[in-house]
């Protein structure tokens, strides 16, 4: 599969670096608008820290609300990067090329945003200072005899997320070195008489003296495969461990499930790949990258998503069946709440419809997969559904945690503070993606150029088919 026309190297540079070298006029307006929303969210968080967690809708027994829902959601989105980059790189899927970089960067920012959520959720984020500064770089207050309890999933969780975050950042940076060299050369002074600009100096530093000889390219290619193979198990472990934050909690009936790890991992891939597909459509539209993000790429993502969505739906059904199959009264009470009682039954229907039935129906016909509006709608639908999924897992379970003691508390209702902070996280990720697009190419230049040199045509009978060479 290699549609589109051949593009010379110079044109690839010009078009894909246009976001960096000649930023469009709307760029700073968009950044300021998103920045204002982030500022609003920061103000709301500051207000909450000042007044206490009482300004949120959380109360006993529902002590995990929107913040933890959003934490799990953004961890899920972060799985897009490795899913696309590592799995497709290892399987040498040709259509991965324009998607990998944006997916990897989305991974980094969504992980950073995810890690903000538990911090805000604590209500006392300044306590982190005690952790960090008592013993430099040690996240525990060793000086006061406090040691991590490795038996707690709440210790496994940061260890997995920080491993994934560090790995993803390093993965992105290594892959960026050749592209920084292109930027170094494009920002070089026209003649040796001119003094180099600060931008050129920075890109020279970032490129680390890259020259592009066969040895460096060989190592770059091996690095891509090797790091993909190393990050892949981390990617699986991260959402498994996030699921164990819930699964290990014996006291909350609907959480205490052995199927949670694969269910969460597949769900994360589902929401993450949908988010990448949507991000690619947006990038194609705002930067005019029609030559690079083509209908064939979105089509391929749509086909992949049908498989992922169906896999996810299987785990969802299994999780529910296992819940009923145990016939435990507490578990059935939560299921009754989720499926039979208003408003949870409505949310449940919306969740299943938007996560599976609507998007898969839209992805099945080829003409819909190649319609960017319909694909956008389907991908947004998945992410609305996946956000709701986490909400429906977390809140009803907690609501029924101690039925007799706290039955006076019925419905968790998020406050304006929570809504503002949640909205701010979406603006934050969008703003950071835009800012990165200003300093580094969101589509890997050398990957696209490699596709161009491997492009060919095969004549079969009376038709000429676009094709691509592939190295073993």
């Amino acid at each position: 599969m290699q549609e589109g026309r051949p593009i010379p190297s110079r044109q690839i540079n010009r078009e894909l670096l246009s976001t960096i070298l000649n930023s469009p006029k709307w760029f700073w307006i968009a950044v300021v608008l998103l920045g204002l929303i982030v500022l609003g969210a920061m103000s709301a968080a500051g207000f909450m820290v000042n007044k206490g967690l009482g300004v949120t809708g959380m109360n006993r027994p529902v002590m995990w609300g929107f913040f933890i829902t959003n934490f799990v959601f953004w961890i899920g989105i972060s799985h897009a990067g490795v899913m696309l980059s590592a799995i497709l790189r290892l399987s040498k899927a040709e259509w991965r090329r324009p998607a990998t970089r944006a997916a990897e960067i989305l991974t980094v920012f969504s992980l950073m945003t995810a890690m903000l959520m538990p911090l805000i959720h604590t209500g006392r984020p300044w306590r982190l200072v005690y952790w960090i500064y008592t013993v430099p770089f040690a996240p525990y207050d060793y000086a006061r005899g406090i040691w991590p309890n490795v038996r707690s999933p709440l210790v496994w969780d940061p260890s997995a997320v920080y491993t994934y975050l560090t790995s993803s950042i390093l993965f992105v940076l290594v892959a960026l070195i050749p592209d920084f060299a292109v930027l170094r050369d494009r920002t070089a002074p026209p003649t040796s008489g001119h003094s180099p600009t600060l931008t050129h100096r920075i890109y020279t530093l970032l490129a680390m003296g890259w020259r592009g000889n066969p040895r460096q390219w060989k190592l770059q290619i091996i690095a891509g495969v090797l790091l993909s193979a190393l990050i892949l198990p981390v990617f699986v472990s991260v959402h498994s461990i996030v699921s164990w934050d819930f699964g290990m909690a014996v006291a909350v009936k609907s959480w205490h499930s052995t199927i949670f790890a694969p269910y969460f991992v597949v769900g994360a891939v589902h929401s993450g790949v949908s988010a990448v597909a949507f991000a690619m459509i947006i990038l194609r539209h705002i930067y005019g990258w029609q030559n690079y993000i083509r209908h064939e790429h979105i089509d391929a993502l749509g086909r992949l998503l049908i498989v992922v969505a169906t896999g996810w739906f299987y785990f969802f059904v299994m999780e529910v069946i296992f819940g009923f199959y145990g016939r435990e009264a507490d578990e059935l009470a939560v299921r009754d709440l989720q499926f039979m009682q208003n408003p949870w039954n409505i949310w449940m229907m919306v969740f299943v419809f938007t996560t599976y039935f609507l998007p898969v129906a839209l992805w099945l016909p080829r003409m819909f997969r190649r319609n960017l509006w319909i694909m956008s709608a389907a991908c947004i639908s998945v992410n609305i559904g996946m956000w709701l999924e986490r909400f429906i897992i977390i809140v009803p379970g907690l609501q029924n945690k101690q039925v007799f003691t706290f039955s006076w508390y019925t419905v968790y209702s998020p406050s304006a503070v929570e809504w503002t902070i949640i909205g701010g996280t979406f603006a934050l990720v969008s703003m950071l993606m835009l800012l990165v697009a200003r300093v580094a190419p969101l589509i890997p230049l050398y990957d696209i150029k490699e596709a161009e040199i491997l492009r060919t045509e095969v004549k079969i009978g009376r038709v000429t088919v676009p094709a691509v060479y592939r190295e073993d």
Partner: protein
Amino acid sequence: MAKRAILGLFEDASYAAEAGDALQRAGVAPTDYDFLTDTPYPEGAFGERHEGHKLYIFPLCGALVGLTIGILLTSMTQMAYPMVQAGKPILSLPPMAVVTYESTMLTAIIFTIIGIVFESRLPSFKQGLYDTRITEGYIGVLANVEETQLTEVSTLFTQAGAVDVVRENQAPA
């Protein structure tokens, strides 16, 4: 006599490969010339020499370091703050495996990155002869030869189809 660098720029990969062959026929050692491109070409596209590397050792070493750190961190913290639960052993192996697994993977990945940078001979800010047109799709054939061979090599490059030949201390066109 000190060697001098000369760079031929080619638009086509086969011309660059021919220039490499011509250099070899002229007696230039394979270690004295290199090919510079803006994209990975299939291995052997220019008839370049095969170079070995030790990249695979790095993740292995990293994994061993991480495994050791993980085991020490999880066992020593449990022993430093012993929590006895229902007479079970202080060292609980399944949770230790989780944190140890993460530390193993983390250091394996960090060591791999160090290996990539080290084996790629980076950072190397003293670039030597280079031309920014290489990142616009031209293929550079860079040769380090005796000063007396410069004219001969320049002619070889031109005959092989070079669009430009750049010498050290000469501003690129």
